[in-house]
Every structure is written in C-alpha cells, then in structure tokens.
C-alpha cells in the first residue's frame, strides 16, 4: 500500500485585507457613528476571534439613512441613465480590482471556503454589477409597451450566506433602474458590505444613493416599517419573510421576497452517475449547505439507490473540512453558533425519527463552529428532516420508482425554489421540468448562477425574480 498523500496547508494570505477596529454607518456618503452609540462585535466563525466592532443602527439612524436615500434618489435621477450606467460599471471594475481582498474578507467573516469566495461569490458579484450597468440606459427595451419608472427608496435586507453576492443581487438592479437604497447586511457578516461602502466612495457615487446600515433584527424591522420606504426586498428565512409581508400589508410598499427551500435533487438510473454525484455533493455541501436553493433532498431511483449511496459515501471521504482560508478546503466553518445549534438540533431530530445517519470521517478543529458533511438514509417524506430547511451540510435521501412519483415527492413541500434532475433522456428532462414547481430547474447540473439568469421561488420560497431582465421588474413600476 502506498503512503497517503497529505496536502500541506495552503492558506491564502490575509495581508491583503485591512480590518479596522470599528466601523461607521454609511449614510449620505459618510461613515457616521451610530446615534445609539452602541456597537456589537463581529467574529471569524472559524476561530471565534473578534474582527471588529460594528455599529447598531437605531430607529433614528434608520431614519437618517432613509432621508439620505430620499435625497440620493433625487440626485441619482438628475443624472442621465447613461451616466448612471457608468457609475455601476465602475463599481463592477473596482470589485474586480479588489477581488482577492474581498474574497479573503468574505471568508474571514463568514467562514466559507476561500475557493468559493474567490471563484464564485466575488466574480459573480462583479458580473452582476457589470450586467445591470448595461441595462441602466436600455430599460425601455426591457419592457415592451411600457415606460418603466423607479420606485424610489429601496430597503434591502440580505442574509449571511452570500454577503457580497446578495448585496450585488440587491443593489445592482436597484441602481440600474434609478432607485436609491438603504441596505442592511446580516448581523454576522457585515464586513464586505462595509467595504462595499468604501467602493461607493472610490467610484464617486453621489452621496445617499447607496446607504449601508448595520444591526440585528430590530434594525431591519425599523427599516421595513419606515414610512418613507417605497420598496422592500428581503432574502432570508420564510419565517421572517412572512413577518415582513405582514409588516408591509396595507402600506402600498412594493415587496419581493427570496426565502427558504427544500429542493429535491432527482437522480434517475440512467443518469451520468459521476457527474450526478458531483451535483449532489455541490448541491448540499457548497457553502456548508447554507444555500436557500441547496439540494437538501436527494431523490434517487430505487434501482440504483444502494450503488449511488455507496459512491456518495466514498466521495464524502474526499471532502476536506477545515480552515476556510486554505485553498484546498471544501467545507468551511458554520456561519455562527446559532446556526450550528439549529443544525445539531435538526440532525438530532433525524436520528430520533429513525433515519440512518452517516458522517464523513473528518477532523473537527478545536475552535470555531463546524459540522461534518452528513447524510441520512432511510428517510421518509413525513420526517422533519425531509420537510424542514436545515441550512447546513445535511442531506436527506429518499427513493422513488417512477417519474410520476419523483415529481409528486419533489413538489410535496411548501417550498418551491429549485430542483435538480439527472437523466440522459432529453424528453424526460423536459417532462420533469414542466411539472416541477420550482423557480429554477437544474438538469444534469446544480447550483449554477449567472447575472443573466433569473432566480427566485414558487410558493413559500418567495416572489419576484433576481437576475436577468426579470430582475428589473422588482424595482420598476
């Protein structure tokens, strides 16, 4: 037997980032101390080390930000669309210029593997701005028969799983359509959004067009409820999405929601199996499973289930869990202790319900928040782990016999964000795609994203689309 080949640590250098001790609220083009005077600590979830003090925006701070955005809206609309486009193009370029710095910062603050922040999050964020910049002076071609107008001040609340990318998904189309924004990043991952504020300064964006405020749920609630907000865009849990929908009820505010999911990744017996294995692995272990469209339910045809699960277990053995900044890390840190507790709790429920658990053999670091890649076999549709979003590296495996049964099981959920289909048969793919109630259907691939491709859910996964021409609709009237 040959000796194992251990890859030496290959950490990405952190000397490209300069994390400050404390940050301000970015309001009206300036970094301001919060009127509340209060701060919270943001940490690195892989080490639990404190990175910086982040201001908590109070109701008064929210009010200042919305007023600044109102003024910004006027300035922004005083510009010709082609000039607005140039500012957005500039943003795309600066993100590209500072890409490594942003990637490292994203991985430090959020725990995601550097290979993902470097190759996916940051390049896609830049691409989003580049894509929407081009729309800014072509909106009349996006909506035949209609003259689109901006909504005004957009309140945007984003999650912690793709901090900079979700910021891009929100801000790029809003700016391209002539709106101004107040954006609140997630409590646990504010750093790239605050660095983005610096980018707004660097490109010379008129003050108030983009405002970034930080804080927890209370700050977000105040922002949603502010009477001078015209549009609310939220990405996060279905639970909070429903609260927001209730909060804006009867106010006339425009609303788009991008919420949870429990996607089925459906593998037929004629699928290209090795690519399907990669798709399943990427579907649930990408970003530690902190992905709303994660393929968290594997539906595998019964005739190949045993063989497929064996292949999957073997593949799990090659996943490398550890330091998010190591270039060879496949599975990084869980974003927060809270999220880790939620994952542990639901995994415990799965075991209690009688599903069979398998966890990849990997060493868990002493500090930080970690959870090994986990699969459950023998899962029934009625199990909570087959119904509830775990938002972690946990896959529930079910089997099916016929295409009809696969569709029925896939759709048997209140969610409808995404789905995967793996088969070599073209007509079956199209048949399945027609019947799957999901905003995105990946056939023989999974978890692909592109600024030109609309993304968003059916049913309780939310409404409205982000990306593509359709993404403009959420910010125009």
């Amino acid at each position, binding site marked *: 037997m040959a000796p194992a080949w251990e890859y030496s640590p290959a950490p990405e250098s952190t000397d490209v980032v300069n994390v400050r001790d404390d940050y301000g609220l970015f309001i009206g083009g300036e970094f301001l101390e919060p009127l509340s005077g209060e701060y919270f600590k943001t940490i690195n979830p892989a080490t639990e080390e404190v990175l910086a003090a982040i201001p908590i925006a109070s109701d008064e701070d929210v009010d200042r930000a919305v007023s600044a955005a109102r003024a910004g809206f006027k300035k922004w609309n005083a510009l010709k669309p082609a000039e607005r486009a140039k500012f957005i193009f500039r943003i795309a370029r600066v993100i590209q210029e500072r890409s490594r710095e942003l990637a490292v910062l994203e991985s430090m603050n959020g725990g995601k593997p550097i290979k993902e922040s470097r190759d996916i999050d940051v390049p896609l964020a830049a691409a989003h701005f580049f894509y929407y910049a081009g729309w800014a002076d072509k909106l009349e071609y996006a909506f035949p028969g209609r003259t689109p107008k901006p909504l005004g001040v957009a309140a945007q609340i984003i999650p912690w799983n793709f901090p900079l990318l979700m910021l891009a998904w929100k801000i790029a189309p809003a700016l391209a359509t002539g709106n101004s924004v107040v954006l609140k990043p997630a409590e646990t991952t504010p750093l790239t959004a605050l660095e983005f504020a610096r980018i707004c300064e660097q490109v010379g964006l008129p003050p108030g067009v983009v405002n970034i405020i930080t804080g927890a749920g209370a700050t977000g609630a105040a922002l949603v409820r502010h009477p001078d907000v015209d549009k609310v865009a939220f990405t996060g849990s279905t639970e909070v999405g429903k609260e927001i929908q209730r909060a804006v009820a009867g106010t006339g505010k425009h609303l788009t929601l991008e919420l949870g999911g429990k996607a089925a990744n459906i593998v037929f017996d004629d699928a290209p199996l090795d690519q399907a294995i990669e798709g399943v692995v990427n579907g649930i272990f990408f970003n530690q499973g902190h992905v709303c469209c994660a393929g968290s339910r594997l539906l595998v045809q019964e005739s190949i289930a045993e063989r497929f699960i064996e292949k999957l277990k073997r593949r799990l053995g090659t996943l490398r869990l550890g330091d998010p900044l190591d270039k060879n890390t496949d599975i990084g840190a869980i974003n927060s202790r809270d999220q880790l507790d939620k994952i542990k709790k639901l995994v415990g429920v799965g075991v209690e319900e009688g599903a069979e658990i398998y966890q990849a053999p990997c060493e868990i670091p002493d500090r930080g928040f970690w959870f090994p890649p986990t699969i459950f076999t023998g899962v029934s549709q009625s199990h909570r782990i087959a119904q509830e979003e775990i938002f972690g590296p946990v896959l529930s495996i079910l089997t099916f016999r016929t295409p009809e049964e696969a569709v029925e099981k896939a759709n048997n959920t209140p969610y409808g964000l995404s789905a995967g289909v793996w088969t070599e048969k073209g007509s079956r793919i199209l048949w399945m795609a027609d019947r799957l109630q999901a905003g995105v*259907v990946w056939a023989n691939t999974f978890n692909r994203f592109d600024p030109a491709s609309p993304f968003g859910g059916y049913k309780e996964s939310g409404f409205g689309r982000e990306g593509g021409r359709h993404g403009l609709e959420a910010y125009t009237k």
Partner: protein
Amino acid sequence: MSRVDVRKTYKLYIGGDFPRSESGRSYEVVGPKDEFLANAVRASRKDVRDAVVAAHKARAGWSSLTAYNRGQVLYRVAEIMESRHSDLAEEVARSEGRRGAGKQVDEAIDAWVWYAGWTDKVAQVMGNLNPVAGPYFNISSPEPIGIIGLVAPQAPSLSGLVSRLAPIICGGNAVVVIASEKHPLPAITLAECLATADVPGGVVNILTGHAWELVPVLAAHMDVDAIDVGGVSLELMEETERAAASNVKRVIHPRDASPYEVTAFMETKTVWHPKGA
C-alpha cells in the same frame, strides 16, 4: 292579464355546477333605485373551501392544455357573450343602471378576444433565452402560479370582473372569484356563459356574498397561491394583505390591460442544461 315572467334563481358557480350555498343563506340584491332584483346566494367559508377544492382539481388539466387550445376557449367565451349581448346588457342595466350597460358588455367581450390572442404569445414576449457565461442552455419562461383568488371590483360589475378574470385564466390558472357584493347578478350570468363556452368546470368558480365574510377566508387559504385585491375595500385591505402572508401569497394590484397582467399571475421558471458533446 299579461304573462307572468319566469325569474332566474341566482346560484353559485363551483366546479362547473350551480349549487346553492351549503349554508342555505341568501341576501337581497337591489337595483339603482333600491328596487328588489333577486336574492343572491350568501356564500359561506365552506363554500370558499369547496370552490378552492374545485379549482385545485381543475388546475392541472387547464394549465396543461396547449396555449392554442386555451386561446380558443377564451375566444369561445367572447362568442357566447356576443350571442347573449342583450341579455347581459339587460343584467348590467338592472344592476348598475342603463347608462353604459351595453358598452360594459362590449368591453368585456373585447377583453376576452384580446386575451384569447395572448395565450400563445406571452411566453414568447416575456420568456428569454439567457446568455449565461458558461456552457449551459438556459431558458426562462412563464408558468401559471396555480390557484388565484380574485376579489372583483364593485363596479363595473361585469367588465371589471372580466378585465381581471381573462388575464388570470389566459395564463393557465384556476380561479376563485368573489363577485361584486353590491352587483353580483352579472357575474352569475357570466358564469352561464363560461359553462357553455368549453371552460372546463372548476377553472373559474364564482361566489357571491359579503366581502367581509369571504375575503379574509380566501386571503388566508393555504391552497390559494395569489390574490387579486382590486376589489378589496380600503377597510379590508390591510387585513387581507396580512392574511395573504400565511403562505406567502402573491398580492396583485390591478393595472391597465397588458400582457403584464397575464404574467402578474405567472411564475418565471428557469431551466438550465449543460451543452456538451
């Protein structure tokens, strides 16, 4: 002595049938001069439930018809209404007054014809092939949302209803309508046109009764995917929109006729597939 006319009993329209309310209730409907016109059915929450069940059964069949087929059905509604033009005009006149009654019927018929032509064009105009940066085929196209709750405007009771109903079913949805509370009779006469125009039973279900009683139930129903709140009164609006959050319902505020009114009741589905030899 002149002949005594035979009066129509106005009932609900559920699953292609014309049942009375399971509650056995009715309410008095009067004309512009407060004269008695008829006793309309005062539907109950259970009738809402039954109507949603009927819509649920009908939705798969309706949405899987070819767009060409759906277009012909919508056009057939216009044909039937045209053949009953004077009848419908008389119904509107009795309810809302003679002025503009005929024009209201014209508008309703024309709306059906207009949307009949959209069934097989919406996906072309509103769908996209998306040029993603990678070796993938990527297409977005609109699909019906599912079951829609439609709160029809109080007036105009016929053309107001049709201007919302036509785009909703144009896209392939099934619908539960709460008709104008004040002028419910034209809606039920419209139902007779739908029933004879090849619209499959259950695709359109029409309830009459009190908005305060029915709208919150419809808005909260977990199997209703979207609600058109055009006819919801200001007093009921906040409650309706709050109730809609129970299952993240799409809340649609009507705008002028356009294909965007069709896609307002549609989801965009994006399908990816690799391109490799």
